[in-house]
């Protein structure tokens, strides 16, 4: 007899769907973007900011944000950083290889079908632009419908670690304000050098009428949010993407617990007012 938990389980959430790698691009020395198409021709329905569990068959499974815009009819995009056995296997995938996809899971940025007339400020650190890419694509496309200005502010350790350079050029061409800075300069770099927060004051957005989406290392998100609030941004208008050890994706296993939240279900996108308390919680 099936248990209650099995009866409640959404089958699509437990069983990976097989996808084939149809293209790949090395973003940096250790970051790869994979373009995926399902073997059965099905198309995933998701919102910007959600994530999938990607499985390197025979190696393991890992949570990776979806980088595609929900309105993009093309392949699914996932950008993966090679930091462990599973991500190394995924980053090593070649065109034609098959990987498993479970999802989508978690909360989203809330921009799909919500092209507000106010400015939207995207602040990304490192590979943190990957979970925001789909949202930026949506927001830039919505500008022709009278939506507010889009500001994309990106920080990276070094110039050669900036990801989605082609996309950034495209967004700029489409009218978005796109600024980047690096923590450490390098020969040939003529752009900004400094923390990503140094881009905020001169970007030109209306601090009193904007929403802000931030993704990056937690310390970077904390300092960015504080700097935004000092500029006059309402804390309730700031969202951050939190990440813990996502495993089941369904809020069952508890590995991703952060205070009262199970981040695979209640996150990754969390309002800053709530996240601020959790990000400052010290380990006991």
């Amino acid at each position, binding site marked *: 007899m099936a248990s209650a938990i099995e009866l409640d389980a959404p089958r699509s959430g437990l069983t990976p769907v097989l996808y084939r790698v149809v293209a790949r691009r090395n973003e940096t020395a*250790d970051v790869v973007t994979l373009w995926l198409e399902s073997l059965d021709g099905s198309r995933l329905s998701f919102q910007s900011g959600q994530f999938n569990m990607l499985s390197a068959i025979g190696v393991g499974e890992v949570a990776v944000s979806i980088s595609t815009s929900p309105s993009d009819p093309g392949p699914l995009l996932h950008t993966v950083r090679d*930091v*462990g056995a599973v991500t190394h296997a995924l980053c090593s995938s070649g065109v034609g290889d098959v990987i498993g996809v479970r999802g989508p899971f978690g909360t989203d940025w809330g921009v799909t079908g919500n092209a507000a007339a106010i400015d939207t400020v995207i602040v990304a*650190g*490192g*590979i943190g632009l990957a979970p925001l890419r789909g949202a930026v694509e949506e927001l830039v496309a919505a500008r022709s419908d009278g939506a507010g200005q889009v500001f994309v502010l990106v*920080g*990276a*350790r070094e110039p050669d*670690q900036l990801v989605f350079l082609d996309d950034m050029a495209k967004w700029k061409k489409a009218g978005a304000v796109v600024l980047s*800075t690096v*923590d*450490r*300069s390098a*020969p040939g*770099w*003529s*752009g*900004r*050098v*400094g*923390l990503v*927060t*140094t881009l905020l*004051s*001169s970007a030109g957005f209306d601090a009193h009428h904007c929403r802000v989406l931030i993704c*990056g*290392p937690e*310390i*970077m998100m904390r*300092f960015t949010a504080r700097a935004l609030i000092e500029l006059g941004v309402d804390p309730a208008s700031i969202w951050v993407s939190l990440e813990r050890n996502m495993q089941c994706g369904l809020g069952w296993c508890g590995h991703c617990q952060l205070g009262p939240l199970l981040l695979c279900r209640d996150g990754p996108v969390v309002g800053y007012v709530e996240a601020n308390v959790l990000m400052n919680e010290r380990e006991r």
Partner: protein
Amino acid sequence: MITIDELVGAHPFAAGLSDEHLALVAGCAQNVAFDAGAMLCAEGESADTFFLLRRGHVSIEVHQAGRGPIVIETVGSGNAVGWSWLVAPYRWTFDARALEPVGALAIDGACLRAKSFEDPALGFALLSRVTQELLGRLQSTRIRLLDLYGEHRG
């Protein structure tokens, strides 16, 4: 025509200064412009000026023989460049170079120091502002030292 008092008063560094102190600062200031590539100051030289940036970006650099300039940080409109004018021996520690056409207010450091000795309230007001700029840069540097985007293998 915009006066030097108005230009100084419009800069974030001067926010909250009394009219009297604003006039004293403006009395030591001149409006200057730099072409892209021009040096605002150079390491080791006498730090007799500091700059309030009005437009454009400036790189704070250190030069290494055989490698050329190493950019430590870039600063832009609204920032101040240089605090060596406030601390003996009044010599620049780094180079500062215009990355693009830069507009700035050049403030005579010796002039301001003399006025601050005569009017300690002005000295405190200036020191508070320089400290605020210093604190922002120090915090930014500390966070960059954490190498947040670096490789943290699990």
